[in-house]
């Protein structure tokens, strides 16, 4: 089994369950713990001291909408005092020049992440709510003016699949961002109730892959993806070529090895419950300031079981039996395996190439 660090390197915390939006595909709302009250400042500050003792390097502040916390700067200062850096994931609507200046003055803000899903209000606001495009664009301008490091995430869905080129033009040419990343609305949180309305169908997925690969050629190295259509396109083309040419197995493939997160990071829900990942809030490992994080990280059966996925061969699953892609496949995201099938330690149908092709999906043409 791959060895985990002695303590997590990165801790993602949901500092609030409140949000000023209700995006149709939000992965937060309706997940476990999302209805609870937020923790008081002191609980987080005490936890940051433990993170310091564990030599954690970075805290990711998410939610809900983290900027709704009136004590945000107090929490940020707690992170700084405890020798860590931080990132913030925000919908951008509540950013002000004053707040941006305060974040910048810490010298420890690694990134502020915004979500921009359309090149215009009609597309962006469709699932995020009226006024949210204007709000996030104002937020982006504030961050640029304040010279804070920015990352933009584009979630691809049914309504923006034909807007991707304009989004790339807006972000890379209009705003001159060095890059942006993409994923897709996946079967989690509120999206589960709205999947038909939001999620890409097979044909749309093919179109999104084509468009993003084309944009990737036009803007080399500037369109990123760890999941979603672009990531699938890149992996699936490699897998198909390898199958056709009978290549040797790819490194770390043939086993459930898609997710390395449990070896280096951990998450805390807004109610203080420690879970393996922001997408796996149902696996409760402990509670901050009550559980010893170092012990939990090294010994909790829930996290050890997720790490043991790495030793589980894809060939042992009925789901993968006879699949020619096994030597080139890592079995996909465990959180999605859980939301779709009810079990984490299983290949996820979500990014399964064989299933995609069997449902009539087409791989992008490569020039």
């Amino acid at each position: 089994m791959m060895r985990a660090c002695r303590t997590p390197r990165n801790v993602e915390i949901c500092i609030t369950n409140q949000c000023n939006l209700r995006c149709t595909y939000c992965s937060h709302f309706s997940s476990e713990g999302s209805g609870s009250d937020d923790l008081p400042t002191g609980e987080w500050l005490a936890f940051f001291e433990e993170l310091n003792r564990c030599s954690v390097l970075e805290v990711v502040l998410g939610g809900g909408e983290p900027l709704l916390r009136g004590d945000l700067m107090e929490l940020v200062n707690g992170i700084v005092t405890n020798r860590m850096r931080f990132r913030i994931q925000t919908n951008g609507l509540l950013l002000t020049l004053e707040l941006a200046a305060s974040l910048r003055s810490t010298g420890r803000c690694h990134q502020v992440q915004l979500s921009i899903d359309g090149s215009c209000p009609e597309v962006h606001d469709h699932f995020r709510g009226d006024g949210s495009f204007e709000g996030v664009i104002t937020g982006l301008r504030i961050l640029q003016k304040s010279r804070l490091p920015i990352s933009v995430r584009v979630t691809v869905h049914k309504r923006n699949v034909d807007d991707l080129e304009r989004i790339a033009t807006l972000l890379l040419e209009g705003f001159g961002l060095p890059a942006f990343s993409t994923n897709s609305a996946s079967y989690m949180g509120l999206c589960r109730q709205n999947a038909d309305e939001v999620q890409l169908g097979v044909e749309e997925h093919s179109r999104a892959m084509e468009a993003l690969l084309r944009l990737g050629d036009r803007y080399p190295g500037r369109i990123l993806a760890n999941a979603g259509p672009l990531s699938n396109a890149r992996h699936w083309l490699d897998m198909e070529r390898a199958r056709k040419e009978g290549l040797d197995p790819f490194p770390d493939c043939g086993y459930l090895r898609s997710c390395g997160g449990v070896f280096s990071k951990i998450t805390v829900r807004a109610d203080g419950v420690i879970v393996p990942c922001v997408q796996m809030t149902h696996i409760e490992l402990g509670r901050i300031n009550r559980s010893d994080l170092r012990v939990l990280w090294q010994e909790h059966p829930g996290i050890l079981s997720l790490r043991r996925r790495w030793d589980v061969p894809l060939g042992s699953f009925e789901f993968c039996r006879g699949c020619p892609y096994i030597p080139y496949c890592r079995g996909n995201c465990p959180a999605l395996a859980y939301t779709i099938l009810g079990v984490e330690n299983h290949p996820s149908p979500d990014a399964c190439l064989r299933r995609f092709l069997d449902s009539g999906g087409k791989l992008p043409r490569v020039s």
Partner: protein
Amino acid sequence: MRSEALVLPMPRIVLREETDDWAILFDPDTAATFGVNPMGVLVFRLLDGSRTVRDIVAEIRERCTDVPSDAERIVGDFLEELVTRGMAELRTPGGR
């Protein structure tokens, strides 16, 4: 670096032990990291503001076997590197 030099790590620097006794030194102000081997970890832990380079090497000789004869130069170079990277500071004036 002179044998009697005193070096102190900057308080913000994080020593993060990874697997196999290797570690990284992390500067949260710059996000810079510097990989250190088990001997580097031991040296870093001995930087308490009271031990000179010579004291550190003496301590290492007491705790470890097969310490190279030029250990003082190796430790001095390592500390010099930490100071250059802004991860530690020299406490004795003219101590280099």
